[in-house]
């Protein structure tokens, strides 16, 4: 009997030991994430959160054709596909093309991408602003951080107000019930909010020149003021806009860079001409612009197809407008005798980029042959701006920054604001603005001397278009100038090929006199297309947003 008790004892003992040694707490916390209740304690942690606000949903390291953010390259420069500057290689059914060709519907995927990424950033900003007061740190630094976050939030509403118009104006953290029950705020309220925020943010942001190199890319006073100028300009507050832009010029921190080509590559990415830019870095936070932009013959996806319209907008180098009937026109090298920026911005048939770029429809062996259903140019032209000829690594691993606002835009906007406000425009103003832009060493176009308001307006608008081509602001310009319904109407052509065996694509029976390749037709609807509809997916959830 004794052994039985030993058995029981041993059994119970073993069991108890097993259970006691194993019975741990059922409270488990994440092992690789910060607990939110104990996070807001130090300046260093605040900086971590600020970095997350800057990042937003910009994607890095891989080609991304989706507009993941207003400041992702696909969100910014792809907007050119919605204009007369460029055509999306993906064709008429591309979402960017459909924004403005008269087929915009509420289920266009871009709408929800922009909408979602905006509110994501806004929520991150809101979270930062709601918690930053818990951190005890240097007050000046804290004020600067708050100003940066308010700047970024205001940028979201700037874009939203310009494209969607009236949107829900969220300025604090929401619950899910609140989010599902929002009303749209009138556009004027959104605009006023943006103006106030940019104004106040500018007060606490450091000047461009005071930002140390290690912090390059963080928002400066000038960045906030330049965005303030944009919204004032767009909302017709020309006098205020002129004064706003003047402050940037008066600071004198930013300069026109003499080298136009390098300005858009990694070489000059920290040039003071870049008032604000999206930061990229090879390996750890790279973009895939090269992959998307490079022509097929060097392994790129050639998504960017400049239209004949922008090519034709560049003047001859004496400042006279381009014409196909002018004797200086040479179809084999269309950049002959032209504004040098044409060649800096657009790649043509037979021009070199590392090797020869061949788009002629007869060139069956060229990867960039036009019109053979290949994934390459649909216009015969290629993008040259942003292309870094010296780059040889993985095309998806490029570290060059993406310009958001350049000083050239500031100068041109200043002139436009003065002009539209009816303020005095004299030669010295022209020399201080448009002629500085045209006159940079690598461009060196003749000075503008026209002072007639109506004529100068056209010149300023054209200058803006050719100078900032493919940088993603043309669409916004067309909307705010209210000329999209005239400009984005009718037929669009690409490269002229007067000599070819293969028939040049034409629209039904319309024979183009210059033998230009027919690309597409647009019919922007004045009644509906100046404002984007709220995404269908959002209306599904909250019918009040329709």
């Amino acid at each position: 009997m004794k052994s039985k008790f030993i058995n029981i004892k041993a059994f119970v003992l073993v069991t108890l030991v097993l259970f006691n040694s194993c019975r741990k707490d059922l409270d488990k916390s994440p092992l690789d994430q910060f607990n939110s209740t104990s996070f807001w304690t130090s300046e260093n942690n605040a900086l971590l959160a600020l970095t997350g606000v800057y990042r937003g949903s910009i994607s890095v390291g891989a080609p991304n054709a989706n507009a993941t953010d207003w400041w992702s390259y696909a969100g910014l420069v792809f907007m050119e596909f919605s204009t007369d500057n460029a055509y999306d290689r993906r064709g008429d059914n591309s979402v960017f093309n459909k924004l403005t060709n008269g087929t915009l519907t509420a289920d266009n995927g871009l709408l929800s991408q922009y909408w979602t990424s905006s509110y994501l950033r806004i929520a991150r900003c809101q979270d930062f602003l709601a918690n930053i007061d818990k951190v005890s740190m240097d007050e000046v630094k804290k004020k600067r951080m708050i100003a940066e976050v308010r700047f970024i939030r205001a940028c979201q509403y700037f874009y939203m107000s310009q494209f969607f118009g009236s949107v829900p104006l969220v300025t604090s953290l929401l619950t899910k019930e609140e989010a599902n029950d929002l009303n749209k705020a009138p556009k004027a309220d959104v605009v006023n909010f943006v103006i106030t925020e940019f104004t106040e943010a500018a007060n606490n942001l450091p000047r461009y020149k005071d930002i140390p190199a290690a912090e390059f890319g963080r928002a400066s006073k000038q960045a906030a003021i330049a965005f303030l100028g944009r919204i004032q300009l767009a909302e017709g507050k020309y006098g205020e806009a002129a004064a706003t832009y003047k402050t940037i010029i008066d600071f004198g921190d930013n300069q026109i860079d003499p080298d136009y080509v390098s300005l858009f590559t990694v070489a000059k990415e920290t040039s003071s001409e870049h008032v604000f830019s999206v930061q990229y870095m090879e390996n750890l936070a790279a973009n895939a612009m090269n992959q998307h932009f490079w022509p097929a013959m060097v392994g790129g996806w050639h998504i960017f197809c400049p239209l004949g319209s922008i090519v034709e907008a560049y003047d001859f180098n004496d400042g006279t407008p381009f014409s196909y009937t002018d004797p200086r026109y040479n179809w084999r090298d269309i950049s002959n005798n032209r504004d040098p920026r044409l060649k800096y911005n657009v790649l043509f048939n037979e021009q070199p980029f590392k090797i020869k770029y061949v788009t002629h429809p007869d060139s069956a062996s060229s990867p960039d042959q036009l019109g053979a259903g290949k994934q390459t140019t649909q216009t015969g032209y290629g993008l040259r701006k942003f292309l870094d000829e010296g780059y040889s690594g993985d095309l998806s691993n490029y570290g060059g920054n993406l310009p958001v606002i350049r000083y050239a835009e500031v100068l041109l906007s200043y002139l436009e604001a003065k002009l539209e406000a009816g303020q005095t425009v004299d030669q010295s103003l022209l020399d201080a603005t448009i002629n500085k832009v045209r006159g940079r060493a690598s461009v060196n176009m003749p000075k503008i001397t026209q002072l007639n308001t109506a004529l100068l307006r056209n010149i300023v608008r054209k200058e803006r278009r050719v100078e900032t081509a493919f940088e993603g602001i043309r669409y916004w310009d067309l909307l705010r100038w209210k000329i999209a319904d005239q400009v984005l109407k009718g037929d669009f052509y690409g490269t002229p090929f007067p000599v070819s065996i293969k028939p040049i694509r034409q629209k039904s029976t319309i024979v183009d006199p210059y033998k230009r390749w027919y690309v597409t037709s647009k019919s922007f609807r004045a009644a509906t297309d100046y404002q984007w509809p709220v995404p269908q997916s959002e209306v599904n959830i909250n019918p009040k947003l329709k």
Partner: protein
Amino acid sequence: MKKFTLLLFLFLTQQVLAQVRTTITGKVTGPDMRPLAGVTVEEKENKNGTSTKEDGSFSLAVSNRRAVLVVSYVGFGSKEIPVEGRSVVDIQLQSSNQQLDQVIVVGYGTTKRENLIGSVAQVSGQDLQARPVTQLTNALAGQMPGVSVLQRTGQPGMSGGIINVRGVGSFGASSGALVIVDGIPGTLNDIDPNDVETISVLKDASSAAIYGARAANGVILVTTKSGKQGKIKISYNGYVGFQKPSAFPEYVNSADYAALFNEASNSTSYTAQDIQKYREGSDPDNYSNSNFLKTVFSKSGMQTAHNFSVSSGTANTFYNLSLGYLFQDGLVVKNHFNRYNVRFNVKTTLSSKLDLTTRISGIKTGDAEPNGPTTFGTEATGVLFIINQAVRYPSIYAGKLSNGYYGTGVVQKGTPVSFLESDSYNKNNGINLNANVRLDYKILEGLKLSAIAGYNEINNKRTEFKATQVINANITLSPNELTKITNSTNYYTVQGLAEYSKKFGKHQVGALAGYSFESNYFEQMSAFRNNLPGNELQQLSVGAPNNQQSNGTANEWALESFFGRVNYSYASKYLLEGVVRRDGSSRFPSTRKFAYFPSAAVGYRIGQESFIKDNFSWINELKLKASFGILGNQNIPNYPYQNVYNIGTAYNYPFGSGISSGVARTTITDPNLHWESTRTTDVGFEFGAFKNKFNFSATYFDRYTYDILYSPGGSVSNTLGFSLSKQNTGKLSNKGWEFTLVHNNIIGKFSYGVNANFSIINNKVLDLGVGNINQPNGLVGNGSTLFNGYPMQIYYGYVADGIFRDAADVAKSVIQTAINPTPQPGDVRYKDISGPNGMPDGKVDATYDRVVLGSNIPKYTFGLNLSAGYKGFDVSMLLQGIAGVKNYMNSYAGFAFFNFGSIQKWQMEERWTKDNPRSDAGYPRLEQISNSGTPNTLLSSFWVLDGSYIRGKNMQIGYTLSKAAVKKAGVSSVRLYASGENLFLISNYRKGWDPEVGTNSIEESNSITASGSYYPILKNFTFGLNITF
């Protein structure tokens, strides 16, 4: 002392009896009392045996009169009959599947079928063994009612099916069943089917409730083989075969492609000369006619598996040792899978009261696949990417050029031809070690205490290599890159059980109390370098130092449970059972961790009542049963309620020349998160008649799930700016019927069996909580994927009303501009369903004209197993199918010229054209379709197709050599068989596509998915051999 004397006496009697050699005679008959010839009768102890004569009689000399006879016959399984001192033993065999005394494995124990109240389906290892499937799950398809197994892919190593027990039980938490292997939670993947003794599926509340916390979606119990009393038994089971894809889309040749491209792009991109050159094929470099899909699926993959097992049982020790090997070659080069299994189960009697059971198993798996090219981004990964590109790339693209360079393909990264010829690969190696020990202590008569400890360690190593590759003189894909990922999972459990069972006259009482604790820790590390000089050396330190990246993470969970069960039966006629379990999970906040899950069941074997027994003697069994209970679900990520700031590369941003770390709060959590619960009611009956030749059962179930753990992202406006973690929101219902019909019979030497099962499931969302949005068209739901009153996994879209024949047709149509701004002849015409006044308003828009087009959850699932035997021959066929299900045919699979993709033959043949403008065309006018679609590709009934099918899951023919013949060779049985899996498919689906693969599963969105990403389900033909010594 008296007791001791009695014991001694009994002992001596036994010894005396045991020593008397004697000859047993008898007669074996079938269920119909007809004599059975050729039945094997063996003495269990020493395998000494004989077979019955024509009249069913046998005569066997056994070593003693307490011997146990093992009687076996094809189609009847085997039966053990103790001689118990008799000299004449007449034996009546029942069919093997529905023996009343069949032992059913249930939670923490076993029960006889007659005493079973809950809904439990069981298959025996025998039914699975001969199936040449690589994953055990696929052998379960069609075998059991209410258990749906859909195999969505045929990829080697990944081809396990998706098991749903009684519908899809949640739209938030994962609705997979809990799998318990020998008492320890595990997975069905990679278990050698030869090792399986039984698989039980616990479907209703009462049977599953003992596993309360995780049992809401059913519990699958796997019991592996242990040794049996007797001499050493050595078995070999092996097969070899080859496989082919079950379906294969057909693409047009390059000449047709060129002509159709002109039509789609409304251009003359390809001149008549071009098209002629494509047709001639005289200049293949510039005018190719490739067939990438054929290139990719060029192999006829070999598949082979072997299993050796040794088992024995002596007085104190029973063991079973099993060694298994499987090799499955993919259809794509460099794609294969292999697996080694070892399992050792041993049961030792330490003393008359102590039993120790030890189970040790190890599984080693390895798979390899070709990898996508470097510099193509993360989506260019693995064999699925390569297949996807093969589906996409039109035939005009050259594979390999005459100068040795590769065609550049659509995106200048080469084609599937160069992908497969590159040095890129992915390799996985996994080791899964499992040990569990169980100590049973019979403390008193009827009372047993058990302590169980189990440990499981899973280690995986993954290597991803993307090689440098020269495509042509101008394009070299570079740099190469190497990623190494290792992860490990450590799981342990300790459990204590007390079991009591006692019979008082006609009262049978049982009780069980238990405790269990489980803990799991997962850790992963990955390291990356690129720019390795050359492709030969593939270790991290070879890579360039300037871009080395490493990542690591870990997570853990724990679960603590207390449970108890009582059951009572009176005269095996009235059955009662009650279960309660209290579970605590680390996944819920401290105040909400624990919850109770109770259940109760009653059974009434009315067939045992004399008014039935006496009046309807042909009825063998009639049992009524009902159960009710509440079960839980916590299949959600590990940290669902904690509010956190995420850290990681997705939040970093470069300031200046360096990268800055960032964090962000991305998710709103619910601090009051708690268990998801399912209330299940189950009523049914079982009926057996004519000596159990016919068995029929029917069960009705009603599963009501509430507090669903759901991330209502799709139901909350994006203005929130955060994603939502799991919330307890919503209610769901799954109601349905399950039927089984079994008929087994023997006529002389011919035996046959029919085993049919059929289930009906009605899945319905009842309440979405935060997603309850009143839509203008009257539906209540999130406006895209979930609506109250409709099933889950729905397709919500427009109703296609044919194709616009011509301009006149367009002109007289209802206005389409809200969704198709410029309708043209050849476009899909959408139907005007409703409008603001509840009536058709003459225009089609997203608000009023979308309807629920159907669900991806099958409403009907069925299986039919037919078998027959004649002398040594046996044949069987398993048919399996689903009906009442919709699939969405989109992306590369559905659309021609999608994202620079190709065009399939059916699209060419059925398209609308100007010359043949049919309003009933099977495909709209051709157009180039970007990855964001066109008005014709909107989610509509045009693309949502009937996904029903009937599939010949398995057909098998076998021959068992006569005992006498093999005995001379010292072998006790030999069976040869030929087997075919997935031999045929009957469906209405689009040509070349298998509806079982379907499209990618739809969860939150109906966005266009890359449904060209698939691995076809494989057909295979195998020849096998089964020998037992």
